[in-house]
């Protein structure tokens, strides 16, 4: 193994040693753990379960839409299916997935800390998350909700007879889980950095999670109170949003999107951080324009709070409000574009290998570019009036949320899998599944752009027959995509037992997390590291032999 040179500071113990996985056994040692790495694994298991459930609903939706008639599901069941799909994927998968799994595992490791600042609050967040999840599943098994994930009033407050209150409480609790995660990250980054780990040496993944955390603590309380008001209105027939009782349904939309627009940045920013790490490692280069990429994360977090009403251009807001929000929406496009340009520029004069994580990074750049540019189309009000609330919007946010967030997550999961488990995943299968994901994804969602421009509204159980061919294509793509997602579930589990043993730094990567053993010991580092180098100091890391990135 060629890792000895890569660890100038901390000697890496090559013999099997006590690590966070074998330090303590039994259910109790997991359920009462305060180790951020174990909590990350608890999250990994639980978000995977929710992803699977949300995926089943996605398949139901796609199967229903194979034919123009509503035949597979009843109208009510279809409405429930897309609502559960949206709520589970947004609140129980996309929001926690990268921060709570990869972030939880990596934030302390990357800054050289022994743990997050508040380990018990970290465990509490997971319990809140799982309580919310169980409550939501209970609600789902008892009939579910049918408002769409957006809870629009007065449908949600007065007209639907499904259990909004229970679903609302679940979202409320899940929100607090995310607030506590964000709070923990911010304090950790401020107070727990190792000596020498200055702000300008932080990995970009940390910057991304820091920006995300700011949104979490500033935005989530607003959705929490909004949902409380919906529940209270429903229970006591108050008139806060219902126009028949003097309320204003647009106020609900404002409050809802004040959180839920920044929430998409909660989802995408950490994945962008992952992509920066992957590209730096597999291009063996410092990220082009480190400072600008870091600033752009913060800029996205700030601008993200100023654009919420672009979801409401046809909702009845004033002409001038719409124009201002359209203008501001373009401003958030700039920092996103800056990131894409910098990643691309990093490839210039690089030394690139095509390991699976890098394939996901390439996929991310491509899909995020399309997702981002279609976002500009939606920010253009003249176009938005036509395509909002159609499949164009559905395609756009899946390009960002699935093409972006999920590609980043899968790339990151493969990249840090050896660190998390101490085993390598099977490279061949991984490349195959990355291909399945990329092809399946585009086949699923690209036709939906056309459907949207043709005018097929979203949340439609039945549709005019001329839209069928495109819908069939989309469903076919979804089947390929499903295979692409099932494969990693299988081979990653397989690798836990049969995967090749990974050494401390199988990718020969920079970053403190690679300077401790795989899997890391409970307190991360045998002695607190002292950082004397910039982030991504690949010029100081000798290259391995050509076939290296896969350990035997």
């Amino acid at each position, binding site marked *: 193994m060629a890792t000895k040179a890569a660890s100038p500071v901390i000697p890496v113990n090559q013999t099997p040693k006590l690590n966070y996985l074998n330090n303590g056994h039994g259910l109790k040692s997991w359920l009462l753990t305060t180790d951020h790495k174990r909590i990350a694994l608890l999250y990994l298991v639980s978000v995977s379960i929710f992803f699977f459930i949300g995926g089943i609903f996605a398949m139901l939706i796609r199967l229903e839409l194979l034919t123009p008639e509503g035949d597979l599901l009843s109208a009510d069941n279809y409405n429930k299916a897309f609502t559960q799909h949206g709520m589970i994927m947004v609140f129980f998968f996309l929001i926690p997935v990268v921060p709570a799994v990869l972030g939880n595992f990596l934030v302390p490791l990357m800054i050289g800390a022994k743990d997050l600042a508040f*380990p018990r*609050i970290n465990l509490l967040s997971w319990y809140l998350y799982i309580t919310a999840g169980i409550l939501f599943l209970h609600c789902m098994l008892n009939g579910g909700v049918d408002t769409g994930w957006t809870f629009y009033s007065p449908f949600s407050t007065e007209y639907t007879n499904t259990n909004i209150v229970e679903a609302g409480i679940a979202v409320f609790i899940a929100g607090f889980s995310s607030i506590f995660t964000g709070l923990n990250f911010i*304090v950790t980054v401020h107070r727990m950095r190792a000596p020498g780990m200055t702000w300008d040496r932080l990995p970009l993944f940390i910057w991304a999670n820091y920006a995300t955390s700011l949104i979490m603590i500033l935005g989530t309380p607003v959705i929490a109170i909004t949902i409380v008001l919906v529940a209270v209105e429903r229970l006591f*027939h*108050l008139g806060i949003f219902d126009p028949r009782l003097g309320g204003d349904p647009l106020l609900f939309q404002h409050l809802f999107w004040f959180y839920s627009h920044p929430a998409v940045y909660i989802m995408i920013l950490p994945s962008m951080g992952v992509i920066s790490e992957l590209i730096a490692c597999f291009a063996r280069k410092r990220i082009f324009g480190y400072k600008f990429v870091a600033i752009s994360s913060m800029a996205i977090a700030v601008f993200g709070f100023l654009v919420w009403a672009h979801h409401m251009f046809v909702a009845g807001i004033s002409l001038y409000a719409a124009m201002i929000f359209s203008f501001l929406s373009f401003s958030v496009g700039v920092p996103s574009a800056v990131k894409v340009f910098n990643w691309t520029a990093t490839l210039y004069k690089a030394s690139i290998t095509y390991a699976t994580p890098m394939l996901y990074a390439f996929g991310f750049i491509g899909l995020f570019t399309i997702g981002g540019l279609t976002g500009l189309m939606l920010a253009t009000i003249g176009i938005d009036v036509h395509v909002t609330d159609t499949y164009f919007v559905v395609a756009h946010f899946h390009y960002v949320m699935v093409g972006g967030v999920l590609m980043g997550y899968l790339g990151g999961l493969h990249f840090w899998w050896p660190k998390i488990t101490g085993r390598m995943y099977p490279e061949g299968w991984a490349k195959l599944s990355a291909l399945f994901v990329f092809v399946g994804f585009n086949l699923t969602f690209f036709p939906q752009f056309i459907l949207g421009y043709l005018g097929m509204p979203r949340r439609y159980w039945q549709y005019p027959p001329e839209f069928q061919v495109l819908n069939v294509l989309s469903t076919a793509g979804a089947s390929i995509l499903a295979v692409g997602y099932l494969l990693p579930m299988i081979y990653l589990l397989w690798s836990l037992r049969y995967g090749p043993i990974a050494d401390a730094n199988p990718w020969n990567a920079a970053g403190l997390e690679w300077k401790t053993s795989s899997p890391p010991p409970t307190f991360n580092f045998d002695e607190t590291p002292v950082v004397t180098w910039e982030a991504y100091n690949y010029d100081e890391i000798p290259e391995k032999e050509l076939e290296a990135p896969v350990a035997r």
Partner: protein
Amino acid sequence: MHDSRAIPGPASTTTTQVATADHEVHNPALLHHFADAQQQKNAASLGMWLFLVTEIMFFGGMFCAYLIYRLAHFNAFAAGSQQLDIKMGAINTAVLIVSSVTVVLAVKAAEVGKRKLLTGYLVVTVLLGMTFLVVKGFEYKEKFEKHHVPGPSFNFTDKFDDNGKQIPVNSKEAELFFSLYFAMTGMHALHMIIGCGLFGTLAVLAWKGHYAPSYFTPIENAGLYWHLVDIIWIYLFPLLYLISRHS
């Protein structure tokens, strides 16, 4: 080692304090993952401040709704406002301001290590908090009696007294005022109840001698929480009770 001392964070303060009451160790408060006590204290206080930020955003949503509706339905909101008991509101404001003073004194007492004094101030704070809640209870009772609680039995026939002119108001809009009144003061009262529980626990622990000049972060952080809840009331009182009474 792990649960040797409470993490002075917003959520776990109460429970962990109780759980660890009988664990006195030499280095009382330092958790394994902090380098030194100063780092831990800084982390705890930053965490608390961030939590307070989330609280402000939480109430901010309701303040925002209140201000928008007040602009939209001015007469009804003014009429509703005129039905609130300004005396009780003022008493409660005074009670809370005094309680903030006792919190400051408690922190000071903890800083200089006066155990009995600290416990005393904490107990007084809890009593003041409860006084507030009792007064609030009487106010709510009055609203019930006057059928000013939103719902099927809501009945609002009062008129808006605009310098002697009696302007009838839409009862639906008055109901909206009382909806927001109950939502905002109810949420505030919930925070008061949590605060009383928190301070009660701290008082017990302080009596048992858990805090010393070298470690009283939980007192400080709970104090920050209490001040925030007070400040929210300081905004609620004029917004709900005062600003529409321009006669």
